């Protein structure tokens, strides 16, 4: 019986956050703590001739300074995901040794008694770098005038092809084909809290404690222990409040090895807090993918085949996420559509830019843009309405479960389990008023051209097979729940409390869900790919069920009656007639008296993924004189199965849409041809502010529950972002269709739109 699950309850985490009483990593202050600052490469590609730390070491307040060779004991940053053959040859050392390969790569570190003095000392380090030609795109990477890794003799880290169905047949049978090259620009998550770490080595206990790690604490602990030459139980990762994750935070970065290594070396706690400029050049970038895509259709608009090449610019090194971004981009090109023949060639390469990792909806944001844009071009060429084109091609409910085939070399085929894709599209069409708006496509109203655009999507969640939990009776009679999932600001603390309270049949105030910490749980996994509710939720329910058995067993011991004479009911151990024998505080007292910890472990193990799905629609007005786009209305619908807290998931949806609108229109990490980084402040790197996108609507609903987990949840963090670029690009293209403007690349910023309009006008006048 659910009392709390399904209710839009106010969040438990809010109270401390609203009062300024939360503890983020920079709020950790330890006795004797010193501060690290990092000297980063000012050039994109070059050989290190000299790093002279002499003057920095002599400065008052400086505790120590270290250069590349001081860290030779440390291994490279390990691969965690997507081990596509070849990518492991391009891993990053935590600090540059002989070469620098991107602007922002660590070259030396200074430790001082204040952060300001540490930064001052960076100015005293003398460096000399012999510059090399920079690789900045596929053209320069594939015609290697410069190799990032000479020993690998190529800048292409991996190349593979996946195919399903008979492509020759598809293109022979097709009466219509079209091929276009699309580009999704480099941008990233930009959480409001930059990264940071505090590491403290306790010589007496021979133990390292680290604050500031998140996402996948147990992987990070293992990697850090191995890097430092310590046993697993000598290293602990402690949870703190987190100022936004979105995929980029919590992976092993160079600093995750440098900070604890130095803390141990100098025997004092070390704090490193990334500043915003560092963040923009050192935290993972994402999204930079181009795609040469060709579609084959019948005259009636049935898609017969889709083939193409996906080019993934990974920046200078393979980081923990391996090849996942281009891998997922290729995999999600199929989307929610019945496409009998698929063939994708995936080319993953390095360039002299910041390394790439996952950002909310990795590969999906990009793939949905490529495919949905090409579908709109096809629909228009064939004279079919954009919504009808999708209706014809969406996988029908009676075709589910539907196997996409094996679209990733190292994974099994995806099986879309449950859904009603057409119904999601119809919801969105109805809500945005599509039938009325499509008549405005291309029309000029008060000087601006209007357009409506669509995107349908499938989103997979819940990767990472296992999650764990531990449920403990505390001395005061409350119940603590520990999980391997980090709370990254998305409301998981509240959602897991709702689940635990319903499983126990008690009030939420009796329960405290703790942030993930390796000191509280022996084994755990983490928070990514919208898996918190799926894997964490099911693991917590399992742990609580085991806890009910355990506390009943303990009560039977205390009372001296058989366990099956007792039951857990109304927050107490009762007899079968309902007589209350012991409540929680009483049991806690007995446990304390016997020096017993009443606790139970739980886990959830499944390699099956969940597949949420939905549709997005955007209605825009484009000013042809300036290229500025106003989003007049936006609507997205996503079937997420069970919503544990509808308020929280609605917040995820709306927030993700606006973040995606930023990705489509504003956010842009720009490099020049020499690989110099041009967007190192928030005055250069723009993200949405309160005046940019005031009209955004949507619904997260539960029509078809997930078949692959007991709770029926599908994950709710990413569906709001994955369809945005496709929908707004289609809307802008629909608005500008009468003046023959082709939209194939992002961002849809005013100068770029204006250029496209001018190019189109010039073509008309010259022909």
């Amino acid at each position: 019986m659910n009392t709390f699950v399904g209710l839009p309850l106010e969040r438990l985490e809010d109270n401390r956050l609203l009062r300024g009483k939360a503890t983020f990593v920079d709020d950790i202050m330890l006795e004797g703590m010193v501060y690290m600052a990092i000297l980063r490469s000012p050039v994109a590609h070059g050989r290190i001739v000299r790093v002279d730390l002499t003057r920095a070491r002599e400065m008052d307040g400086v505790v120590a300074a270290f250069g590349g060779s001081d860290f030779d004991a440390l291994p490279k940053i390990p691969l965690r995901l997507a081990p596509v053959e070849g990518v492991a040859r391009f891993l990053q050392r935590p600090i540059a040794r002989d070469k620098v390969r991107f602007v922002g790569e660590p070259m030396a570190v200074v430790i001082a008694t204040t952060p300001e003095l540490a930064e001052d000392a960076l100015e005293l380090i003398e460096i000399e770098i012999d510059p090399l030609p920079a690789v900045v795109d596929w053209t320069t990477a594939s015609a290697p005038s410069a190799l990032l890794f000479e020993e690998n003799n190529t800048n292409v880290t991996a190349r593979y092809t996946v195919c399903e169905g008979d492509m020759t047949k598809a293109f022979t049978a097709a009466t219509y084909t079209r091929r276009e090259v699309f580009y999704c620009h480099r941008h990233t998550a930009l959480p409001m809290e930059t990264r940071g770490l505090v590491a403290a080595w306790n010589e007496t206990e021979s133990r390292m404690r680290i604050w500031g790690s998140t996402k996948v604490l147990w992987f990070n602990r293992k990697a850090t222990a191995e890097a430092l030459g310590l046993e697993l139980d000598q290293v602990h990762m402690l949870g703190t409040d987190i100022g936004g994750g979105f995929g980029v935070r919590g992976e092993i970065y160079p600093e995750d090895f440098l900070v604890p290594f130095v803390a141990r070396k100098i025997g004092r706690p070390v704090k490193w807090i990334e500043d915003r400029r560092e963040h923009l050049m050192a935290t993972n970038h994402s999204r930079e993918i181009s795609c040469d895509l060709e579609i084959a259709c019948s005259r009636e608009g049935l898609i017969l085949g889709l083939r193409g090449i996906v080019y993934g610019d990974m920046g200078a090194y393979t980081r923990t996420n391996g090849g996942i971004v281009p891998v997922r981009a290729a995999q999600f090109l199929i989307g929610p559509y019945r496409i009998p023949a698929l063939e994708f060639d995936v080319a993953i390469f390095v360039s002299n830019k910041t390394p790439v990792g996952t950002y909310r909806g990795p590969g999906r944001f990009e793939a949905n843009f490529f495919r949905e844009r090409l579908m709109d071009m096809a629909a228009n060429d064939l004279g079919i309405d954009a919504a009808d084109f999708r209706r014809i091609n969406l996988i029908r409910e009676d075709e589910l479960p539907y196997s996409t085939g094996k679209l990733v070399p190292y994974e099994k085929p995806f099986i879309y389990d449950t859904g009603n894709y057409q119904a999601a599209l119809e919801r969105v069409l109805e809500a945005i008023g599509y039938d009325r708006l499509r008549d405005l496509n291309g029309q000029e109203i008060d000087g601006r051209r209007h357009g409506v655009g669509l995107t349908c999507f499938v989103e997979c969640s819940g990767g990472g097979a296992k999650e764990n939990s531990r449920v403990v009776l505390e001395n005061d009679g409350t119940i603590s729940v520990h999980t391997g999932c980090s709370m990254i600001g998305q409301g998981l603390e509240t959602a897991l409390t709702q689940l635990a309270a319903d499983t126990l049949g008690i009030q939420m105030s009796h329960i405290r869900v703790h942030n993930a910490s390796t000191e509280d749980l022996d084994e755990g996994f983490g928070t990514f790919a919208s898996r918190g509710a799926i894997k964490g939720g099911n693991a917590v329910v399992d742990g609580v069920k085991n806890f009910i058995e355990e506390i009943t067993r303990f009560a039977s011991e205390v009372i001296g009656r058989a366990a099956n004479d007792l039951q857990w009911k109304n927050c107490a151990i009762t007899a079968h007639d309902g007589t209350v024998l012991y409540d929680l505080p009483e049991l806690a007292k007995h446990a304390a008296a016997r020096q017993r910890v009443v606790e139970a472990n739980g886990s959830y193990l499944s390699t099956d993924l969940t597949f949420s799905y939905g549709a997005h629609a955007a209605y825009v007005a484009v000013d042809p004189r300036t290229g500025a786009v106003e989003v007049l209305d936006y609507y997205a619908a996503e079937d997420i199965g069970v919503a544990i807290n509808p308020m929280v998931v609605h917040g995820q949806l709306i927030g993700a849409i606006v973040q995606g609108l930023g990705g489509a229109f504003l956010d842009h990490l720009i490099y020049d041809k020499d690989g110099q980084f041009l967007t190192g402040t928030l005055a250069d790197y723009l993200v949405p502010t309160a005046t940019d996108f005031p009209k955004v609507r949507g619904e997260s609903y539960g029509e078809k529950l997930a078949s692959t987990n007991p709770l029926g949840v599908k994950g709710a963090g990413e569906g709001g972002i994955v369809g945005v670029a496709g929908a707004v690009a289609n809307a802008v293209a629909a608005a500008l269709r009468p003046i023959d403007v082709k939209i194939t690349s992002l961002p849809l910023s005013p100068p770029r739109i204006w250029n496209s309009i001018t190019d189109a006008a010039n073509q008309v006048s010259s022909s």
Partner: protein
Amino acid sequence: MTDVAIGLTVNGQPVEVSIEPRLTLATLLRRHLRLTGTHIGCEHGVCGACTVIVDGDAVRSCLVFAVQADGTEVTTIEGLARGEDLSPLQAAFQKHHALQCGFCTPGILTTMHALLNEEPNPSEDRIRDVLSGNICRCTGYLPIVEAVLEAAAAYRKEARS
């Protein structure tokens, strides 16, 4: 560098402190006074996370030297709640789910508190305008605007009495 002695009022409490003149008000609050609710998001005056109220005005504490705050009255996020109770603005944020990770929230609350004290009846456009100096990556701003519109009623009531 020689420290400079300053005196100011923080959340109603008098504070006397000696501080290096190059350090910011944000550093004074966070490191010296351990008021860590004020967050540092960019240190170049764009994101608004570090906003505090100085003599009634919303001010970016990363752009003000601590010594410039000598003699002022400063209110930080820690000074907004009324004892055990959340302030009407804080309560409206919770009700409307106007925060997720909460890192930008202190700066947004102080900015909106200063606005509503001056203008207890702002339009939605006016709220968005003032809010546009604060970056939030989680919420998309819509619930923040709703929360501020609702909380404004409490400020109007206070202004009348």
